């Protein structure tokens, strides 16, 4: 009984690292952690989209949060890709460390927590059609 309560009152996250910083995403969104062997850049995409990784016939866009949050990166090597699922769409975050799982009490406010849905909407690539300057 007591254990059940404990489980309910805890939340699990996956921790990944960008430069000196660490970010957390909900554990249940994590699909897999990949070694980055080959990334294909996508011409025309914003700079934080490093490219796409073919995974079993599908592609996963790889996002570098260092570009989003202006984080300086010292070491480029040993990149991992943390693949998460957001409403059926898979995206990957570059991680400079091998991501790992942690659990905290549910009432603890986690710093550097990423709301995957929100981030997805924010970072989603919008049409490049440059109509804005025409309207001005």
């Amino acid at each position, binding site marked *: 009984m007591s254990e059940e309560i404990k489980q309910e009152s805890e939340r699990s996250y996956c921790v990944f690292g960008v430069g000196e910083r660490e970010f957390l995403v909900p554990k249940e969104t994590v699909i897999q952690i990949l070694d980055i*062997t*080959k*990334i*294909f*850049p*996508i*011409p*025309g*995409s*914003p*700079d934080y*989209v*490093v*490219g*796409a990784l*073919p995974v079993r*016939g*599908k*592609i996963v*866009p790889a996002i570098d949060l260092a570009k989003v949050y202006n984080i300086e990166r010292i070491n*480029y*090597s040993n990149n991992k890709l943390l693949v998460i699922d957001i409403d059926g*769409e*898979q*995206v990957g975050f570059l991680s400079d460390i091998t991501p790992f799982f942690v659990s905290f009490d549910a009432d603890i406010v986690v710093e550097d927590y990423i709301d995957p849905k929100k981030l*997805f909407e924010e*970072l*989603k*690539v*919008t*049409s*490049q*059609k*440059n*109509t804005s300057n*025409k309207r001005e």
Partner: protein
Amino acid sequence: MITQNELIKYFLSEAEDHINTLIEGIEDLETKGYTRETLESLFRATHTLKGSASIVKLDKISLLSHKLEDLFEAILNGEIKYDNSLNRVIKNVINLISLYINEVSTNEAEKTELNQDIINLLDNILEKKEAVIEQPEVVTTFEALPIVNTVRVDIRAIDNILTLLGEILVQKNAITDKEKELEEIIEGISHSSKRLINEINAFSDRYWLVTQDKQQKITDSFFTDFSDLEFDRYDEYHIFLRKIQEITNDIAEAINSLFSYSEHLSSNLKSFSREIGYLKDNLIEMRMIPISRLLHRLSESAKDIAKDTGKKVQIEIKGSEIKVDRPIYDAIYEPLFHILRNALNHGIESPEERIRKGKSETGSITIEVKKEGKNIVINIKDDGRGINLPKVKERAIQKGLLTADKAPFVSNEELFSFIFMPGFSTEDNVDLLKGRGVGLDIVKTEISKLKGTVEVFSEIDKGTIFTIKIPQSLSISNLIIFKAYELEFAIPLSYIEEVLTIEDFPEIKRERKITHKDRNIPVKFFHELFFSSNGKSLEKGYIIVFNFSGMRKGLVVEEILGYEEATIHPLGKFLAGLTQYLGYFISGKGTLRYVVDPLRIFEEEFLFISPEVIQVSTVSAGKVLIVDDSISVRKSLQSLLESKNLKVYAAKDGLEALNLLEEKNVDLIITDLEMPVMHGYEFITRVRKDPKFNDIPIVVLTSRGTKRHEQKAIDAGADGYIIKPFDEVTISEILSKFEIIK
């Protein structure tokens, strides 16, 4: 042309549907009573059944359906009040229709004489506009429907199979690539084995008579069993030599069998590929439906319009047996109908006007469907007024599509293409185009969605032809693959008219257009659109000429890799904003290929280039060229380097290496010294002579360990010297020394 039998087959599979609808409808009427909805579905079923039956000339079914249709229509219009007693009559007729369908299915004809009573009864009801009480015999059960030899499959099931097949195709391509690799390996082994045999033969010829050590005891029983007189005395050296020769011959034998094995494998693979091809074609065909029904629906509607507008027209349909993909079938009706309506409303003249012009009173419209390769071509041709080009020109100037000074030089072709521009024509110039103009841009949009094109050609008072070209299937696309900055792209073949080389058009870079076949074709450079190409000038390259509904546009690409069939996957929601891509597919080698939307590229206001130059180097850290005549050295070094995420190119002699250098950017060269064709010293000297390459570090990897060799290599321009066999540590040291791995 489609045979009557085939038409009947289509009719039967369709009729089954309608009969079921009718039976369900009448059952609903009996159990739930009259609803407008039920009656409408009954009406629709009889209407279509009538039409289809008349096409295949099944007059009795057509007549009966027609009468039922009239009855339903009268009820729907409130002319006849629905009464339960009608159900019996309706049931009787439906039963009679299924009886005839049964007969058609077995005898391909309606055999039983039509019972005139039932027709009279129906006529009676229709005339008196009330349900009649007197009844022929009561029918309670329905005739069993003919069993048509078909199975209904959910289209998604076929799509799933097609997706799987797509994956199989990827695997197949991978195997085919591996096959080439196998051939190379065998080639390599065979080459080495020949050298081995030659060396050993030469060696044994020279030293056969030299006895190494007379004191040595012979231990091989084969020789010791004989006395000295029976056999020449051989020492161990001779025996060893002979054995080596034998083993070498065995190896040569084995390699020969390997050769024939690989040949067998190749031929198996070839037939395997062919079968997969057939399988794919069959599946795609299965997924498709004949366009005939759609065409007949079109011609029915067209006749109605003709009646309304008081025009006489004959509609001819050719090629109705052609099959198309379901999504195409669903989407093509509207645009076709639009063109047809335009032709009727504004193309075909009134009978009086036609007679005045000396044409026959009845106008003619031909709808012709043809298959051209993997495309479907639909021509809609009328013999009406035609398009008034001077007016089109006037309008184009008005609309700002054309400047007055350029107008005299515009080709007719280009003028025709204007009529597809959005809002090109409006109500104030009704007779400029054959329609109110609104709509032809929509026709173009709809056709574009199907990755197709539409073109028009017209002659005043002779008529107009609309030509629509669409791919037969949407699920598998035919693509041209090209390369830019180490990335691979694809573009659908359906828009492509031809491919030219830029050498033939020296003006291209300056003028950004070419003159080809008397047309001025504006061109764009792919690498400028997709990469900020910092002054990269193309020496070689290709111009892909597109035909977008009569507008020709050119796209310059650097290198064309070939042609492939593939299923395009969408990029997904996250990347959906990148509208310059239709999607992607993954090649047999696992390379991601982005499928470019050519229509998007040529939209004027489109900006592609991301703020930053794309760093293609993220694909791999560095590129190393290995030059060695030994396949085992090449392979082992390659796998070692690739494990360090490096891109590796391999060459088996100096000459091949020089050729590779011309094509690829290389960060480091590792070369052997002794090689056929061009040896290492010469290779190094040549590389160092070329100003393009003289700063690429060169490391020698050789079994020659003497200082003299090393000095000679350094003098030639080598930067490092490794003596074989190599190990990972040494290679790693070299890689970090020359900063290939950071």
